[in-house]
């Protein structure tokens, strides 16, 4: 280890130090000053973002390795990390209001979130099977605890338990695959593995290991049939935690897919492409179909996540630089969209009751036109209606699979995104064409409203100026 190693991983170290500091600061803060923790956390993210963007050790277009090749910093890592900070910053602002309203205000939320972020960053920058696994576990462990944050809520505890057990099972499967990979190649470093696999050729043991690795990735993304935890966890967790689980870990899961499949197992592209094709198609079909039958917004968004992850996999399975950048674009925009949607849910929630039933959205336009308009933009974007950024995300991944000749998959994707637009538009219909059931005022603090407005309008602006972000994603591969 040298000083330059530390320098390359400086943002990670900074987040670690700050997470520990915040944990200590929280102990000495009186109950009514807990908002400070939120403020410091957002500042931490801001500084970490500056660190990533400003202090590039040498040149970000080439990958830099640190800690004996277990850690890598490249363009993709930098871009994903910055978006992790942005999304998490928004989540922190939204969560502060939520935690206050639900009387859950505690520093642990922020500390665990920052540890989760650290895990995501480790995973994003992983260059070895070991760091992939440890990053994943750090994310998972933090999220298990966060899901059960509201201890008095039986639903949350149940969801956390399910998440924990299924997550352990998936981790076990992934670890099994990794150990087989290590057994065949004799190395933990992803680039060494890629080299050995290329020499080994068509080895059944490797394909067998690959299956377990793919299952691990599929579980983390929530792809069918490894998706069962998603609806229960989304539903059971407090909205502020659901929002978190739907954002940063998705970016990390995308990175995990790229690191393992592209960086590590690219010689086996033909094999994982076939596996992911099945998973992606199933996710798109099942996710969209079941979302229609939901009357609970959190569950609906959970199934919509499943279908979105299917779309994301389309880009990954294309196996081209174009596909990867499309999937990255999808992951980033999805994280932003889903955060915004949960923020609307939080804003509508009253003390102790989350606005999770679709009926709560009836006539929202009459109660708060701005909020309704923002939700409309978010829903349109999720449905993939042109001009909104979600359209470009879908368009890019579909273009990527068309370029590798998977016409039937593209047709499935298009047909089911049309079917899927039904449930997004239903929310819009409820907001604009139904009579409200209550006339309570919908309010939130100014910072919350500001961030939410930016978040909603971003759907439109990112669509109009999609090129900048697309260029950023393309430059990452």
């Amino acid at each position: 280890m040298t000083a330059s190693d530390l320098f390359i991983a400086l943002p990670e170290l900074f987040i670690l130090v700050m997470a520990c500091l915040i944990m200590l600061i929280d102990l000495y803060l009186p109950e009514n000053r807990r908002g400070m923790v939120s403020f410091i956390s957002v500042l931490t993210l801001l500084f970490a973002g500056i660190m990533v963007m400003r202090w590039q050790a040498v040149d970000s277009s080439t990958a830099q390795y640190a800690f004996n090749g277990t850690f890598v910093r490249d363009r993709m890592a930098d871009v994903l990390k910055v978006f992790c900070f942005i999304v998490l910053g928004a989540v922190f602002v939204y969560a502060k209001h939520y935690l206050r309203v639900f009387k859950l205000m505690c520093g642990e939320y922020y500390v665990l979130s920052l540890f989760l972020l650290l895990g995501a960053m480790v995973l994003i920058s992983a260059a070895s099977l070991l760091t992939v696994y440890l990053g994943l576990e750090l994310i998972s462990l933090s999220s298990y605890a966060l899901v059960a944050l509201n201890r008095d809520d039986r639903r949350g505890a149940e969801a956390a338990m399910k998440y924990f057990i299924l997550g352990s099972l998936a981790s076990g499967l992934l670890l099994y695959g990794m150990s087989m990979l290590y057994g065949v190649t004799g190395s933990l470093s992803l680039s060494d593995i890629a080299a050995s696999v290329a020499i080994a050729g068509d080895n059944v043991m490797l394909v067998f290991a690959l299956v377990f690795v793919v299952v691990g990735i599929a579980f983390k993304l929530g792809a069918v049939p490894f998706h069962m935890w998603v609806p229960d966890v989304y539903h059971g967790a407090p909205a502020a935690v659901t929002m978190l689980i739907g954002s940063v870990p998705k970016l990390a899961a995308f990175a995990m897919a790229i690191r393992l499949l592209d960086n590590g197992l690219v010689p086996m592209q033909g094999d994982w492409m076939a596996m992911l094709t099945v998973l992606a198609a199933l996710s798109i079909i099942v996710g969209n179909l079941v979302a229609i039958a939901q009357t609970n917004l959190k569950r609906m968004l959970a199934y919509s996540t499943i279908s979105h992850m299917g779309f994301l996999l389309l880009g990954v399975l294309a196996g081209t630089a174009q596909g990867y950048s499309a999937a990255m674009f999808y992951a980033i925009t999805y994280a932003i969209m889903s955060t915004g949607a949960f923020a609307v849910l939080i804003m509508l929630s009253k003390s102790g009751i989350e606005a999770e039933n679709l009926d709560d959205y009836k006539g929202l336009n009459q109660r708060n036109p701005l909020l309704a308009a923002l939700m409309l933009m978010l829903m349109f974007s999720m449905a993939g209606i042109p001009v909104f950024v979600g359209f470009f995300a879908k368009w890019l991944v579909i273009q990527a699979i068309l370029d590798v000749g998977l016409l039937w998959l593209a047709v499935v994707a298009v047909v089911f995104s049309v079917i899927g637009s039904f449930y997004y538009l239903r929310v819009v219909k409820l907001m604009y064409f139904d009579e409200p059931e209550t006339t309570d005022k919908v309010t939130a603090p100014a910072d919350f409203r500001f961030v939410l407005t930016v978040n909603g309008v971003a759907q439109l602006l990112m669509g109009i100026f999609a090129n900048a972000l697309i260029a950023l994603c393309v430059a990452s591969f």
Partner: protein
Amino acid sequence: MSIQVLVFYLFGTILTLSALSVITVRNPVYAALFLVLAFFSSAAIWMLLEVEFLAITLVLVYVGAVMVLFLFVVMMLDVNLSRLREGFARYLPVGILVALVMAGELLLVIWTKGAEKLPLPPGNPEGFSNTTYLGERLYTEYLFPFEIAAVILLVAIVAAITLTHRGRSEGGRYQDPARQVQVTRDERVRIVSMPAVKDKENGA
């Protein structure tokens, strides 16, 4: 077949059987004891692989600490086994079927194609200390993963405390020694001044 292979299969069999027993025996104390047996067998297999440190750690930490704690819990809590076992028989056939298919697939892969391609690790030189090697590697080559593992443990502590510790505001009874020491007489003793009255007036 060398003696090592024989020993491997011996402990392998014990390991598998004891693992099976962990989930099939009715008495949870027995199950925990079978788990101890399974740990011992795997420690023996690790010995075969010349990783003494891990073998010893496994016995010390898992058998010595974790399982003892576990046995305490099992014995203190009166777990209702009949309720836990509901549905076990109902799902058993499907479970066995799935397990068989899985095992079949594994066997097929490992036996037919895989085995011959796995390279053997190079043998260790004379006087090789597994413990020293491990220590060196952990703090040099694998420093970063090692630190991250430490963070994971930290998160586990934070998570455990978050989930179990009820905060001060939630009705727990706590002592505050600082306040106890600073207590003044006035806080504890109230001197009530009462006018002296005669019985006669009072009784009238």
